[in-house]
């Protein structure tokens, strides 16, 4: 369901910097449905990839075969990302805070971490250089604390946070995340239960349309069996 909602955020023809996991699933779903001309760029160097299997990693050989361009990573980060050619950056995250800052580095203090997470990878520069940043993450108080333990990716350019119960968007000057849309049958209280700060709601909450049967079929039977 999150993948379907995330896929809707992508417009045909856009250039998307794709992270692994749900973002990857959402991008490939969008490419197979309403956005056939979506240009998928992976930090591994594959541009315009058309994977014939769901890539397990962002360096999967299926991203290379039949892609439009394969370049070194220095070009990916300098000529494409830093040079402002990427429209959408798609990130997941262990922790997302009240202002959309993401932490994928450590739980606990950096020098003596409780849990050592993988770290930035390309997430820091994606959040800084992509014109629009989308986050996909499941709600839980641990995943949505008021403040993250470590800012791996700053929240300035975050436009939407797609969760498993509703959608959050930045609001006001400091870009505090507020609830703007709910999945069918979900109450604001259910979302608040998964968020570590007093969550504000937009006056008239939108309702997230249910996924089309075709999309679910595509997801379950083809993209992510």
């Amino acid at each position, binding site marked *: 369901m999150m993948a379907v909602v995330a896929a809707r955020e992508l417009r045909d023809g856009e250039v998307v910097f794709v992270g692994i996991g749900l973002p990857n699933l959402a991008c490939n779903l969008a490419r197979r449905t309403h956005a056939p001309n979506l240009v998928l760029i992976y930090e591994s160097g594959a541009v315009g990839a058309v994977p014939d299997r769901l890539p397990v990693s962002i360096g999967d050989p299926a991203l290379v075969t039949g892609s439009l361009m394969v370049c070194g*990573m220095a070009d990916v980060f300098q000529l494409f990302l*830093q040079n402002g050619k990427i429209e959408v950056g798609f990130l997941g995250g262990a922790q997302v805070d009240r202002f959309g800052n993401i932490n994928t580095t450590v739980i606990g203090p950096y020098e003596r971490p409780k849990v050592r997470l993988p770290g930035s990878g390309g997430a820091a520069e994606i959040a800084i250089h992509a014109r629009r940043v989308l986050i996909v993450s499941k709600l839980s108080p641990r995943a949505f604390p008021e403040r993250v333990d470590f800012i791996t990716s700053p929240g300035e350019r975050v436009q939407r946070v797609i969760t498993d119960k509703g959608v959050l968007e930045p609001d006001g000057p400091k870009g505090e995340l507020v609830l703007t849309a709910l999945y069918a049958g979900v109450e604001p209280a259910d979302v608040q239960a998964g968020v570590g700060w007093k969550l504000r709601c937009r006056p008239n909450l939108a309702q997230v349309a249910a996924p089309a049967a075709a999309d679910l079929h595509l997801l379950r039977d083809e993209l992510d069996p």
Partner: protein
Amino acid sequence: MQDAVARFVRDGDTVVIEGFTHLICFAAGHEIIRQRRRDLTLCRLTPDLIYDQMIAAGCARKVVFSWAGNPGVGSLHAFRRAVEGQGGLEIEEYSHFGMVARFAAGAAGLPFWPLRDYVGTDLPRANPRIKAVTCSYTGEALATVPALNPDVTIVHAQRADAQGNTQIWGLLGVQKEAAFASQRVIVVVEELVEERVIRGDPNRTVIPAMIVDAVVVEPWGAHPSYAQGYYDRDNDFYVRWEAISREPAKLESYLDEFVYGVTDRAAYLKKSPGLTTRLEAKAQISAGVNYGF
């Protein structure tokens, strides 16, 4: 491989085994473990399973990296134990762009590289080697990272000639930069080819012989990583690693059987019957282009 590692990889060295998902030279990592190298500073964007194994084997004093996980699967548990607990493994952390920029500076013979990055992140607080420079044209502040110049870089490639002129296709990662930045370079290839094969398509050459110290021929030397056009990534093994690396005892016995327990890559492959047939690449040959005039 035995000779190359014996000659060019020394205790205390800063070692780079690069390759982004593609062409990670596990054969070299295993030989370094067998030869019991110690106090190495291991640098890679993604430590991956290879450095998790080398850390578990006690080769590493320090790891310089930008993303330490098992992609799409989970954690590098040996790495985590060494960092979370009193493992005492030193780390130096950047983002991918930061690591790429460090190699680019090292390869260009520059002491630093400028990049627009880290604004609003906690990374510079965690790593004081990330600094800033002011542009003398616009006055704006840019981030900088210091050059990375390894003692030895090991690059796995599809093919090279006997002199070391090396060609890679598919994902290129930062191999070219890492090799040019390094004091010594070991190239490990799937296939040794005649010089005329290299000369037949010079635009594919990524590393020239003049910077190569040793050429090692090691088919399947990248497994469980992959070599485009030769064999697929062994995703099953990457999944299995989660359980193996989680249990120090299991990891120990894995090393005993598949690293210490074998003398070379050929013996390693014999231990997994059916592996090569399962992962062998199908043919999808590109058309040639005309270099004539």
